[in-house]
């Protein structure tokens, strides 16, 4: 009798909760929709366009699957226990306090899973850190608040700063499509070339990050960090500074145009003529 009433109560409560929950979610969705032009609910890493970014993406998916399965197992055991071993259902407590077999299993299996994760990770890291045999070098310098690019072999260098107008930031004007991800002078790279980036900073630490081109690296004053990029396709790719660097940290984006060789040469010529 008692348990029946309790179950009913729980079911009722769940119903209420579900009802309230879906109402809440529904309102949220309705209400959030009109506020933005391009609702895209991005859930995952951006589409990779370099080998490094692709390796990172694949590794990310692999470990996401692994931890999701582990998580689901833990949750399943937990919910099974919650449902099955309730005192209100007359469950009697067992007395066991350990089981060597179980403990060995749940030490050894995770170890094996970790080894399985470590192998591709090590390979990926070796690939990323190999900056040899590059086709060209660009020096990237972070400063408060923008970037400076120096094509060292080409005698081309320029600053690159945010162009989003203040009126869009304060909201007196509608925000544009590339709000906060637009700059005056784009960095231009040739497609298919291995570009070695030398990163440093003038004042405080910044970090150069274009998700589709691969991971980030810190730009540290007084030091030179390296990374490399080889884009597989042409296009415009956007990123941001990823290390807190003061007041306008949120306002120092990065825009990279990957173009074919001819366009790249033309761009270089144009830059030289400017200077």
């Amino acid at each position: 009798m008692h348990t029946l009433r309790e179950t009913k109560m729980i079911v009722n409560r769940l119903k209420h909760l579900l009802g309230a929950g879906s109402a809440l979610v529904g309102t949220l969705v309705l209400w959030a929709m009109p506020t933005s032009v391009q609702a895209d609910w991005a859930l995952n890493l951006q589409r990779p366009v370099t080998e490094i970014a692709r390796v990172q993406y694949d590794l990310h998916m692999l470990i996401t699957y692994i931890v999701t399965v582990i998580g689901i197992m833990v949750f399943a055991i937990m919910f099974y226990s919650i449902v099955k071993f309730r005192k209100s259902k007359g469950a009697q407590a067992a007395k066991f306090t350990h089981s060597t077999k179980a403990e060995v299993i749940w030490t050894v299996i995770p170890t094996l899973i970790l080894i399985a994760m470590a192998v591709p990770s090590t390979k990926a890291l070796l690939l990323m850190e190999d900056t040899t045999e590059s086709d060209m070098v660009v020096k990237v310098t972070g400063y408060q608040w923008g970037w400076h690019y120096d094509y060292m072999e080409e005698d081309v260098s320029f600053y690159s700063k945010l162009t989003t107008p203040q009126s869009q930031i304060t909201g007196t004007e509608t925000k544009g499509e590339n709000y906060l991800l637009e700059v005056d002078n784009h960095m231009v790279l040739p497609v298919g070339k291995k570009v070695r980036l030398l990163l440093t900073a003038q004042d405080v630490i910044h970090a150069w990050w274009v998700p589709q081109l691969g991971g980030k690296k810190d730009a540290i004053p007084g030091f030179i960090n390296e990374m490399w990029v080889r884009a597989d396709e042409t296009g415009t790719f956007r990123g941001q500074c990823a290390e807190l660097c003061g007041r306008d940290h949120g306002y120092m984006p990065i825009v990279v145009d990957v173009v074919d060789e001819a366009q790249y040469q033309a761009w270089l010529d144009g830059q030289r003529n400017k200077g």
Partner: protein
Amino acid sequence: MTTTVADHHHDEVPKGITRWLFTTNHKDIGTLYLWFSFIMFLVGGAMSLVIRAELFQPGLQVVDPHFFNQMTTVHALIMVFGAVMPGFVGFANWMIPMMIGAPDMALPRLNNWSFWLLPPAALLLVISLFVPGGGPASGWTLYPPLTIQGGMGMDFTIFTVHILGMSSILGSINIIATILNMRAPGMTLMKMPLFVWTWLITAFLLLAAIPVLAGAVTMLLTDRHFGTAFFDPAGGGDPALFQHIFWFFGHPEVYILILPAFGVISQVIPTFSRKPLFGYTSMVFASAAIAFLSFIVWAHHMYTVGMPLSGELFFMYATMLIAIPTGVKIFNWLATMWRGSLTFETPMLFAVSVVCLFTMGGLTGLMMSITPADFQYHDTYYIVAHFHYTIFAGSVLSMFAGIYYWLPKWTGHMYDETLGKWHFWLTVIGFNVTFFPQHFLGLAGMPRRIPDYALQFTEFNQISTIGSLVMGFAQLILLVVVVKAIRGGKKASAEVWENPEGLEWSLPSPPPYHTFATAPEVR
């Protein structure tokens, strides 16, 4: 075995403000710590709502970016050093003597001093927000050269860290001395409740880690004012050096925040499973293993700083290893519940949610330990989600579990179970609505510590802000529950729960002002 202390002439409870100012009583000091922690929790929480309000929409609506940076910085410092650490010291003060059958802490006067260092330190930090140039705005990690640029508020922060550190060191010396010297006859180390064990290990972590932090911020101070150049490349220094020192403290610090929480959960789950803790010995060893490993993984916070390949590989493998003892703990809790006789009073609800949600935080931690992938995750909202699943859902929810578990013991009254359940559900739902979407934001490319963002991040930020409002206001329920239980309510029996294990339950609820004047026998 019951110790009657009624005729003991020391048992009159002092009155008025001097009771609290001059107290050397572990229960009073525990209470002070807990109230201090709760106030800091509300102050830090208010700051997080400022952050979430600004992030509700792209654009700048509520605060200026410099103030935004101060909010993220001070929020984190207050939560870590003002809410979670003192909160668990409060539990240690109340519970350790009662759990090991000691009359009080080993060094009661020191105990008074370690508490009363806290309010001035917290005040200093809050005042820093109002001095010219504002408070610290460099993130709680205080990386130079940005910290060198900060105004006077930065110096206030450095002194705050010094004072809080002093308090932690004194507190941990006291805890170690108490546990090692004051156990009742028969209470061998391997009979100690797990909460006492995890605190013993935590206290050693504090002793080792806090002086390193103090050193790091002192070097900042001399770089700022006395012409040294530890971290200034122009003078031959190295900005990355600070990060190594900071994280040598910082990673053990995160285990300082979580180990006592593991201890609380290991007390609560057996009681409501009506079954002894599974794998006590392996729990002790897993805690010790975690503590040891925590000193050799610091650079997993600095993969992007530009380390040699061998360094990145070492820190990746070492960090992945931590998943094993952490997994052991989770499996032991599951096995404790397995074939138990479960009931779900509020403490148990919180404990179960900790096991589930902390598992999620641990799993994202494992993902971030993979260096190549972390080059994408680092410094994004993915990290923010990870550490809130570990610190909020791990440490803070464990504290809630502990409060509901021991509140009847402390006050002598049962708390209001209905309100407790409201508090639980609103907190846990609000928490997940706030932080789960942040995984998506981070993956999609939203950096952390920005006041304004590109349009594709709008929807999840809005959901997150709504969740944070629910979660934030739900905490006022806890205040109501605690105040109600202090003022009255159903009388709690000595045992409170059904056959709970531990010496604290052999004392009346509330326990007399002085307990275990003669040591109990432990079989």
